[in-house]
């Protein structure tokens, strides 16, 4: 996983609430392997492109200063719905490294951490102000600094954000979580022995 430390980049605002992962990547692209040719073009496919593959000029990522943005500033419950991790993979393929939101779908939120994408959760009025500033000054940048847990708004105001210490550490170092957990092998084994004694019925009978 790629580490996340500090990023200053152009940010794109998306105002609609409850943008689901089906909209981020429609089901028909889920069978494509990660990194397949043109993978980034599946991002927001049906709202970004017409049926013939031409760009819809009104979609934010098709507009000049926002094209190639590395940060998205979104509305409530972005990434709700399906657990498909491809929604994060396709954002990553496009180059998005951080999503700033008042709230995120729970599974999407977790999936971000596993792929080096930093979710920044801030109060709804602050996020709305970010989006307004980005529309007023297209192409403005935002700085997200994970170490100091500050995000600098397009107008230069710094805001502190909360991040779980565990997730922060993993993102800063880009560590593989499975590798970390395997370090708990003896604890897992102990647990399994006790579990087998106390809840022996858990192991399925049939087969």
């Amino acid at each position, binding site marked *: 996983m790629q580490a996340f430390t500090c990023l200053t980049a152009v940010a794109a605002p998306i105002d609609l609430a409850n943008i689901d992962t089906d909209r981020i990547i429609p089901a028909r692209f889920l*069978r494509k392997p*990660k990194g397949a040719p043109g993978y980034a073009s599946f991002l927001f496919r*049906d709202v970004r492109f017409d049926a013939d593959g031409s760009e819809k000029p009104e979609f934010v990522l098709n507009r000049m200063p926002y094209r190639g943005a590395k940060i998205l500033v979104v509305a409530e419950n972005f990434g709700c719905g*399906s657990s498909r991790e491809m929604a994060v993979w396709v954002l990553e393929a496009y180059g998005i490294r951080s999503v700033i939101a008042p709230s995120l779908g729970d599974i999407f939120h977790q999936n971000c951490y*596993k792929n080096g994408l930093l979710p920044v959760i801030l109060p709804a009025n602050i996020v*709305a102000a970010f989006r307004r500033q980005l529309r007023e000054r297209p192409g403005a940048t935002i700085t997200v600094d994970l170490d100091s847990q500050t995000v600098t708004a397009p107008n230069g105001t710094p805001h502190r954000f909360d991040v779980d210490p565990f997730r922060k550490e993993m993102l800063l170092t880009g560590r593989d979580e499975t590798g970390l*957990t395997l370090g708990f092998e003896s604890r*897992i084994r102990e647990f399994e022995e006790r579990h087998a004694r106390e809840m022996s019925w858990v192991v399925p009978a049939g087969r």
Partner: protein
Amino acid sequence: MFEKIWSRHGVAEGPGGHVLLYIDRHLLHEGSTSAFGRLAKSGRAVRRPDLTFATADHYVLTSPGSPAPDTEVRSMVESLGQHTGQQGIVYFGVGDARRGIVHIIGPEQGLTLPGITLVCGDSHTATHGAFGALAFGIGSTEVEHVMATQTLWQKKPKVLRITVEGRLPDGVNAKDVILAIIAKIGAGGGVGHAVEYAGSTIRAMSMDERMTVCNMSIEAGARAGMVAPDETTFAYLQGRPFAPRGDAWGKALAYWETLPSDADAKFDREVELSANEIEPTVTWGTSPQDALPITGRVPDPAAVGDDARRESMERALAYMGLRPGTPLSEVSVDRVFIGSVFVEAGFEWREAGCSMCVGMNGETAREGERVASTSNRNFEGRQGKGARTHLMSPAMAAAAAVTGRLTDVRRLVS
């Protein structure tokens, strides 16, 4: 109940209040195959194949006798067969009579049990919570993590109790209950919470009905939803192929009976609904929270003060091809997607699979087609690019099939 299961499955504590949670059941489908590839690449094996079960449901075609799926899908299904074979995992593959939708076969086979932790790479895994299990959907990296370690790093969610009291009116059923709940708390209302469904309405429900309610927990933003196990649960499970037997059954039962929340249990949040206020419900928009009684009318965005909300509604109505003020019962439908036995009435009876619930296998509605659907998501493009989905109960979908438009099922039965 949540607390009892959670505290019994903690292996170790990590920083920031994270707990290494032990997983008792891991269910796989053909969409999970890429995790096997990554696992193999890192030189790791599945730690507990005896707690892991697989089926093919997301991509397989459901039309009987239809041509074999395309090569991409075929290779996914074959690769699931190979990987599970190599790792010694029970696989309900194509041709196996036990094959079916992952959240149906768990209960059917007696793999889903009260008091266990269960995960699957599908957001509707909360369905298994109907049995009093802590069940939730996970992403692909988490699938790989569970394969390798049988655990997951989890932060403890808050607990939301939703109580529904009273007898449901005729023509109103479990799907209407959950749609009414989501309309009330919103598509993001349960984010960060596990839901416990309680009250006399829930207790009177069959296991199928409880599964319908729990299934859509994620549509309210909650990863897990659960119902306390009771006689209905135990009667359903006894004698199922993989359920505990003999002594083990007695031991399990003794434990399961301790699971329901204590009378003085505290919840982080509470929501209450009255069964007699719930009507047959349909969605008009592109989020499950856009739900109204069938007696209602398409709402008018102009009446909404909040800018973002108004814009979302306008977009949803444009996508759905609906005009404000139209009575919902005048909306005509082109197609009905129903996951139940209606073959006598002239419906197609298909093979088991997710099909138009998720639209991954290519079985989709055409652009602009209006679908009366018993599935769980009305997102833009969920049932095919440009397809318009109205969510409703099986009874309401059957009524729509009979009349060709959204119909109050109570008018057909009375």
